[in-house]
């Protein structure tokens, strides 16, 4: 706690430059260890799992973008460019840790074991969707994998994550919460509420801020005036680190250390991953109107996946042949899953009213009965494969979410 006991007789304002937070960087752009860097302990198995999942998500994102263009799903949103920030961080946590993410962290869900079929079921709102067809594509959730269902409303998960972590601490189950959000979401009031509460109530939660330069069209220069998000963590009394988000080893090292600090110290930790959203915000967006190709090119050259590949190749843990095979397998796996899962039926009509409450109250049951009667009068008009309808319904310039 603050003591406020240092006094000074001369008037001087403290400025952002008085707190310079450096960026942790371990792998250079060629995938070599920096000379002054301490590489984290990472075994081959973990490294390859990380690499495979990053690659998987890159392939999934490309396939689903194409599928969206074909009208096979209504909406999609890629993680492209930020794979190391997401996979590198989640790899530092245990499976029992709860993940509360924003929406661009499908790579973390994959790392936990989400299957291609499960991704498809959600995006296609079919009868096997764990979310019962209620949310737009990419709003995943899995109780089994400790991955909280995504909400479109930005930043709401931040104070929730603090509370979840507090509950974990009380339960004494040696687990923490990892909470992801973007540079834009960090402007919401809920960010402030969540970080301050986490700090003063000693909640074991690790906040991973994905600073990717943009919030839809808004560059970070119009989102904040300070030195990124990291100094805010310091202001709340939270141990904070900034990392090169395209450097898998830096992200991983910071995450492993952060988890330990959070659990051993019963305290929040913040990691700011500096990266770039290489793709559009979503399939409803076209970034050419608000940023230039050079900037994109600059960042494309820093691609986190190829940087990690170079490192793996250097260590002799990976080969070009394995690379080709892996990608081909993923392409096939994903396409097969898309084809099979899009044939599945929609959830049952009753899922329109179930789960509003644990048990549907009388008025809702009555509304449902009336609906059924009505549908019986116009059987052709309703229940007509709505999953298909989704594909064409959205206007191309509607930004969702």
């Amino acid at each position, binding site marked *: 706690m603050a003591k406020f006991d240092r006094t000074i007789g001369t008037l001087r304002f403290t400025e952002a430059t008085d707190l310079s937070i450096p960026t942790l960087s371990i792998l250079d752009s060629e995938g070599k260890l920096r000379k002054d860097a301490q590489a984290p302990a990472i075994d081959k198995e973990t490294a390859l799992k990380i690499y495979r999942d990053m690659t998987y998500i890159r392939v999934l994102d490309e396939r689903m973008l194409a599928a969206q263009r074909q009208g096979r799903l209504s909406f999609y949103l890629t993680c492209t460019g930020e794979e190391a920030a997401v996979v590198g961080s989640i790899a530092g946590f245990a499976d029992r840790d*709860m993940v*509360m993410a924003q929406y661009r962290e499908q790579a973390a869900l994959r790392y936990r074991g989400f299957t291609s079929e499960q991704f498809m079921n959600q995006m296609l709102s079919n009868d096997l*969707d*764990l*979310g*019962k067809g*209620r*949310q737009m594509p990419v*709003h995943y*959730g*899995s*109780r089994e994998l400790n991955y*909280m*269902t995504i*909400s479109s*409303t930005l930043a*709401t998960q*931040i*104070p*929730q*994550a*603090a*509370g*979840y*972590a*507090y*509950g*974990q601490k*009380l*339960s004494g189950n040696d687990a923490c*919460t990892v909470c992801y959000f973007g540079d834009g979401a960090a402007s919401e*009031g*809920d960010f*402030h*509420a*969540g970080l*301050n*509460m986490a700090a*003063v*109530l000693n909640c074991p939660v690790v906040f991973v801020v994905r600073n990717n330069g943009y919030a839809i069209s808004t560059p970070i220069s119009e989102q904040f005036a300070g030195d990124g998000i990291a100094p805010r963590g310091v202001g709340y009394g939270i141990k904070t680190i900034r990392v090169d988000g395209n450097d898998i080893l830096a992200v991983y090292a910071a995450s492993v250390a952060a988890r330990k600090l959070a659990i051993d110290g019963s305290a929040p930790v913040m990691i700011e991953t500096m990266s770039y959203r290489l793709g559009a915000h979503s399939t409803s967006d076209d970034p050419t109107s608000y940023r230039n190709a050079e900037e994109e090119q600059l960042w494309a050259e820093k691609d986190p996946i190829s940087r990690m590949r170079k490192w793996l190749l250097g260590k002799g843990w990976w080969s070009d042949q394995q690379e080709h095979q892996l990608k081909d397998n993923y392409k096939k796996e994903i396409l097969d899953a898309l084809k099979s899962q899009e044939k599945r039926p929609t959830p049952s009509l009753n*899922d329109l009213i*179930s*789960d*509003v*409450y*644990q*048990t549907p*109250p*009388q*008025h*809702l049951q009555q509304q449902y009965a009336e609906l059924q009667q009505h549908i019986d009068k116009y059987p052709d008009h309703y229940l007509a494969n709505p999953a298909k309808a989704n594909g064409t319904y959205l206007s191309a310039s509607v930004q969702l979410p």
Partner: protein
Amino acid sequence: MAQINLLQAVNSALDTAMDTDDRVICLGEDIGKFGGVFRATSDLQDKYGKARCFNTPITEQGIVGFSIGLAAQGSVAVAEIQFADYIFPAFDQIVNEAAKFRYRSGDQFNCGGLTIRAPYGGGISGGLYHSQSPEAHFCHTPGLKVVIPSTAYQAKGLLLAAIRDPDPVIFFEPKAIYRAEVGEVPETDYVLPLGVAEVVTQGSDITLVGWGAQMHQLHRASNMAAKDGISCEVIDLRTLLPWDVDTVAQSVGKTGRLIISHEAPRTGGFAGEVSATIQERCFLSLEAPIMRITGMDTPFPLVFEKEYMPDYLKVYEAIKASVNF
């Protein structure tokens, strides 16, 4: 059984809830050592420790967000909002998050362990920001339950039911009668059912519906009317969402007349919902227009609070007007 007041009944319910379930956690502004600005959480921190009963920073959106997370994790979170007037910064967390948490996840996750308590209502010279009755805002939100007690006995039984209910509940406490309202309350553990209205007085000529502190105005008006030979059936809704349509419809089927009364402004208030629904259900039984006696369509005033309030005299006049229609 002891005679205690409504505030003590709330405290007793919290005590019982924490005593019978380790997972119950109370949090809010000034609710720790101090016991809350109204003292509803008195002694709880001493009894159950700082980990289970604690002060939060002043951030209603944070308090509710944090409590949702707690509940999702498996705790039973009882959050206090210091005044119902200050619940609005938490509106997004309540309406977009708590209310939709189970639905959007396909029942994989829920925050049913969440209860939000807030003192509400006028009559204490509190002006714009210490007097509001915001219940209608929440009644338009599927996924929430909204509960308001009017007696000490109800307060304990309904609050325990709310805390243990599998859905998120907003529990508004009528602060104007925190101390004035005294009654027999068992020291033991008991619950009253949510979603069920209470017919407090049987009658045959007209039905009066209300909740919370307003019940006392209805009783007083009903007594005045009785002297004129008018028999009022007085119904305390107790739960506003989901509300007990059957009980009210049955009563209006019998009396043919209905007055609904609340402190909140008229337009968009919950009386409109009750009126519209009963009109649909009892159209052929109605002998006079359903009337609403409510606060006026202004912010809550200070010097003219008495004039603004839907008091027993206004209800009494409405009873006469309805019966003479």
